[in-house]
């Protein structure tokens, strides 16, 4: 069943359709949420919220649109809200910027994913979002512009800045390939 047929099934009220939608896209949505929020538990909460909102509003979904960018757009908005709420909450957790980096320069090539994650966490959220949507979710500039509701020029600018800052950070960490 393709995505469009799945949405039509969902609209028809098939009780199995929500499960199919979630199983098909939960990895995609959770991947974005985890990158944006950095905490597994928070990411799972927002993933759940994303699907509940998507299914509640399924009658308003334009069938001509692709499903994945639509879901990622909802997830991006929910992540933004979650980050705002988290910023208002007093927290004992240090932000990556506040945490001194005592780790030795990288020697373990297996930790490259960890290095990328750490570098991403230092980016501004909007840069991080655009980078993840482009490089990890494989969305095109046009799709990202729709997801974040910004002009394509802004998307390119943010992506280029994200790359530049990431490249500099990896270099400072001694990451060489």
């Amino acid at each position, binding site marked *: 069943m393709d995505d469009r047929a799945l949405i039509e099934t969902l609209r028809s009220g098939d009780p199995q359709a929500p*499960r199919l939608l*979630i199983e098909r896209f939960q*990895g995609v949505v959770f991947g974005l949420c985890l990158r944006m929020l950095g905490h597994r538990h928070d990411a799972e909460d927002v993933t759940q919220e994303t699907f509940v909102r998507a299914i509640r509003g399924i009658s308003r979904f334009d069938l001509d649109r692709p499903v994945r960018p639509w879901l990622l757009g909802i997830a991006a908005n929910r992540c933004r809200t979650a980050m705002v709420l988290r910023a208002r909450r007093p927290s004992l957790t240090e932000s990556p910027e506040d945490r001194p980096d005592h780790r030795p320069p990288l020697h373990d090539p297996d930790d490259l994913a960890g290095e990328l994650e750490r570098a991403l966490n230092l980016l501004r959220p909007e840069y991080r979002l655009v980078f993840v949507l482009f490089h990890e979710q494989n969305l095109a500039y046009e799709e990202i512009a729709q997801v974040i509701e910004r002009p394509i020029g802004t998307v390119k600018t943010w992506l280029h800045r994200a790359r530049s800052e990431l*490249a500099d950070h990896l270099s400072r960490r001694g990451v060489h390939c």
Partner: protein
Amino acid sequence: MILSGFSFASSNRSHQKTSLLGCLRAFGFAVMVCQDVEDGLNLLLDGDVIAFAQLESEIEAHVAECSPCRERMRRYQTLRQVINLSSKVGRPNPSSSVLASTLFQLEQDRGRSRRVAFLSRTLVPLSVAASLFLIAWPARDRNAPRNEVPTQDVIEASSLAGTERVDSDNIFSLAHAVTLDFAVEKSTTVARASRDWIERAIQREEESIQDETGSLLAFQIPRTILSDQLLQSVGERLNDQMTPFSGTARQAFGFLIVPVQEDRNRNDHANGS
């Protein structure tokens, strides 16, 4: 080749391919300056550049004589490789509880929607009809001889016998649904709409009162089941149940208990005198 680090798997972003002509135009067919190199490196990271080899050679020519750009290019190559390697780690998956809890929440949503729809279709009209009796019956019989009303504050439903107790419970359930469940679900908007509906129904009832056979109320609930004692039971129980709720909800549905309160005041006054 210096730019070998920029090799990457082809992506599906074919519609944003940059043509050879576009690339060369972007660089003006001239010797690259440092800003052009950064733009070129980003084009390579975007992928699907048709003029890959052409762009590579342009950049290579520049970095061969520009140390800062050579360093910048090396950093971007590293970034590219980190992106490629981390993409092979695989996509993280949420725990299985996410699926279960999401489905549970959706099921709760459906249950709530069904309940509201059921209330809208069935219970509200029935409750409204029951409510009408709470208002209309004492008003119509105000001048008629009334049954003796016990003086205790609340008449327990259990003290009513047989059919009366069943009727009291049924009417209470209907009125309870509209006063509590619906007030909680929809608050004042629906409460006011229901009250308007009742007022219009009362008006129609008064208009049709000359024609007993065409009575709207008589059609919905046989009025013979009602007695003052039964009404008081329902009214007192409703009053008790509504107490914890907001003043707005109580005010919106307050009409349900007015007749009984009036009865009680009248009785209190009679007993006092």
